């Protein structure tokens, strides 16, 4: 076997692949051959490194060089300079956004410093299409340990003591869930992996499946042993073709090794996995709807109880767990429940993966210990707000969560703390907003999503959310009243109390949390017909600053309604009654003399 001196890890996740990481791999290999270095450096396609903002990423080992924004044409230079001569390609190095300094070693990047990788331990490290690399990282050793050394009860106890809680949104204790499913007697039981991942902007589960599919297979098999199930099903959305392909390859490889099938590792435990495809409806991530969808019925939720652990798929006891929850399982058995329980807060153990998005410098996938503060995540790992703007709010929990503000920045992130301040952990979406984001418009955005995704089975959600959306729309158009705000709050409370499933029970959260934290902003919309963030187009005003305007008349010429008056070399003026708020003038002005004022003119 060739002894490679260098490994070139190229991200093969969906994000980087869409920017041609496959071609980068090809070009790297080609250049290596050209220089006769094919036995010196090996090119490996891995899962996501998380630093998606600046993909495609190429990481060079052993020196941990982190190249960002790599183009296929850069491959030749990386080989000629770095691999051949040991000189880093400066222009491709990651630059610290604050210090504007090139960081050559990823170990020194603020983005990675505070992260702890448990669920993502293999993502960006192994080739996900190669089962041997997973095994080299102690893959399937947890399964072997459980089968050889533990009874199902003992194995469940390990998870209970670890304190692991479900990462799909609800935060239900995983060990307890397994125990309940284990105690219900039946001739067949099922282990279901929920890979529906419908939150807008979330891609935690996809990255795990793409980067480390075997960890999910191993965890499902362990769960099967614990609860007495021999069949596993992964419910995955059809919009995840790469994750599906990697899972299929992984399942095939595990079968070939006898790690799926009959009498696994010489034990009495048998287990196999099938994939079921979802059409990408958000509500199908709700476990009862998911089960109905797998049975070929309409993807609509039903009342719990009965819980899936009693009567789930084909009315058999069924354990549903989220992808990230499962990804933690093998690590807990290998390193012990004490280790896992030592990370995190009193009631939330371990780590959580977040998809950082919005107005933040380092958009990407991160895994942080529970109990880290929002401030650390946003300003240290996330690198702060884009373009030097001011932080305004952070949305967690997706359409079920809320918007938190400045005063929550030092709240330690865990299940209970986020609930206490009116948001929730959710599945791990985290969207950062700056001074240009209008909170009424944000609430409206989430309601638009809920209205679209409501299955329509129950009236509070089907009709109530529509009404909420109409009220928000009215307010953003400047036609709302103070009574409308009252109405928003009352209706929200009723919907939460009466909707059938989790979708409707949480859908008013974005409205309630923005009402609580940004009351002034709602009032400005209804009292002054003004949007302080300047985002609501109908309420926007443009103002020419007399001391900056040189009187060049450029804006008067582009204004389609002739709303700007002004003589050459004299300050111009906008007639607010004629202005249609198209913004043509602000783009044209070379002197930054036109602004959108944050208070009403």
């Amino acid at each position, binding site marked *: 076997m060739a*002894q490679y001196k260098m490994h070139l890890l190229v991200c093969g996740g969906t994000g980087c692949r869409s920017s041609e990481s496959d071609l980068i791999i090809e070009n790297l290999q080609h250049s290596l051959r050209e220089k006769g270095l094919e036995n010196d450096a090996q090119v490996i396609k891995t899962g996501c490194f998380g630093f998606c903002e600046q993909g495609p990423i190429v990481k060079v*080992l052993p020196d941990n060089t982190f190249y960002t924004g790599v183009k296929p044409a850069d491959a030749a230079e990386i080989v000629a300079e770095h691999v051949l*001569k*040991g*000189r880093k390609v400066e222009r491709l190095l990651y630059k610290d956004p604050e210090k504007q300094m090139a960081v050559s070693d990823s*170990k020194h990047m603020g983005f990675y410093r505070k992260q702890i990788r448990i669920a993502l331990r293999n993502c960006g490290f192994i080739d996900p299409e190669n089962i*041997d690399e997973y095994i*080299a*990282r102690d893959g399937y050793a947890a399964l072997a340990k459980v089968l050889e050394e533990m009874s199902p009860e003992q194995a469940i106890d390990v998870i209970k003591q670890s304190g692991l809680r479900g990462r799909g949104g609800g935060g239900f204790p995983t060990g307890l869930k397994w125990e309940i499913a284990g105690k219900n007697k039946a001739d067949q039981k099922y282990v279901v992996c929920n890979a529906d991942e419908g939150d807008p902007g979330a891609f935690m589960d996809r990255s795990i499946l793409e980067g480390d599919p075997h960890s999910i297979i191993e965890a499902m098999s362990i769960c099967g042993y614990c609860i007495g199930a021999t069949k596993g099903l992964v419910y995955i959305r059809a919009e995840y073709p790469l994750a599906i392909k990697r899972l299929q390859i992984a399942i095939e490889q595990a079968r070939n090794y006898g790690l799926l099938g009959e009498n696994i*590792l010489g034990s009495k435990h048998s287990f196999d996995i099938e994939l079921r495809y979802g059409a990408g409806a958000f509500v199908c991530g709700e476990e009862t709807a998911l089960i109905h969808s797998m049975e070929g019925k309409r993807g609509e939720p039903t009342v719990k109880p009965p819980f899936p652990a009693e009567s789930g798929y084909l009315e058999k006891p069924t354990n549903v767990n989220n992808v990230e929850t499962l990804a933690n399982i093998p690590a807990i058995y290998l390193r012990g429940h004490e280790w896992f329980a030592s990370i995190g807060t009193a009631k939330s153990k371990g780590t959580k993966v977040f998809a950082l998005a919005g107005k933040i410098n380092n958009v990407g996938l991160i895994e942080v210990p529970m109990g880290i503060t929002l401030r650390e995540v946003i300003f240290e790992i996330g690198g702060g707000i884009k373009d030097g703007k001011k932080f305004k709010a952070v949305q967690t929990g997706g359409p079920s969560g809320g918007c938190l503000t400045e005063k929550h920045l030092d709240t330690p992130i865990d299940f209970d703390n986020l609930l206490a301040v009116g948001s929730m952990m959710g599945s791990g979406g985290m969207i950062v907003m700056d001074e240009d984001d209008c909170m009424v418009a944000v609430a409206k955005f989430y309601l638009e999503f809920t209205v679209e995704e409501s299955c329509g089975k129950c009236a509070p959600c089907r009709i109530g959310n529509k009404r909420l959306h109409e009220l928000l729309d009215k307010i953003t158009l400047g036609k709302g009243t103070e009574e409308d705000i009252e109405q928003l709050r009352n209706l929200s409370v009723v919907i939460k109390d009466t909707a059938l499933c989790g979708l409707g029970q949480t859908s008013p959260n974005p409205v309630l949390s923005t009402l609580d934290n940004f009351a002034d902003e709602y009032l400005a919309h209804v009292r002054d017909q003004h949007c302080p963030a300047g985002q609501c187009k109908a309420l926007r005003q443009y103002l020419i600053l007399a001391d900056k305007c040189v009187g060049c008349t450029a804006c008067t010429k582009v204004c389609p309604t002739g709303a700007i008056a002004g003589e050459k070399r004299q300050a111009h003026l906008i007639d607010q009654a004629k202005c249609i708020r198209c913004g043509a003038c602000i783009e044209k002005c070379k002197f930054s003399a036109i602004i959108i004022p944050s208070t009403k003119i």
Partner: protein
Amino acid sequence: MNKIKSLNDLRKIKQDVEQKMDLREKSDNPDRYVQIKVAMATCGIAAGAREVMNTLIEKIAQDKIDAVVTQTGCMGYCHAEPTVEVRKPGAEPVVFGHVDREKALAIIDKYIKTGELLEGIIPVNYQTA
């Protein structure tokens, strides 16, 4: 493909692949390993740094030493190429000059294994990152 029947079978596969993954494992925790840097700029390569690097890598794999070998650019000791910098965990880096195959083996057998210093140490004039 042979079926995996036990933890031992898993361990066997692990051992087979481990060598291949070794580089990645070590890079992930660089501070725990002996770090060896070979200057591989034009001057170093011309003086035979490539052969030195290969020798080091083979020897480390053979003797199962917890070390990683990295190539760096010119370290500024062009008069003494090929040069090799060795940093043991918790210790200051030491730079050896005029390293050839034999000296490379001696660096591992003596300095790394027993801590015995060799001839040809160059005073370190700056810290590498």
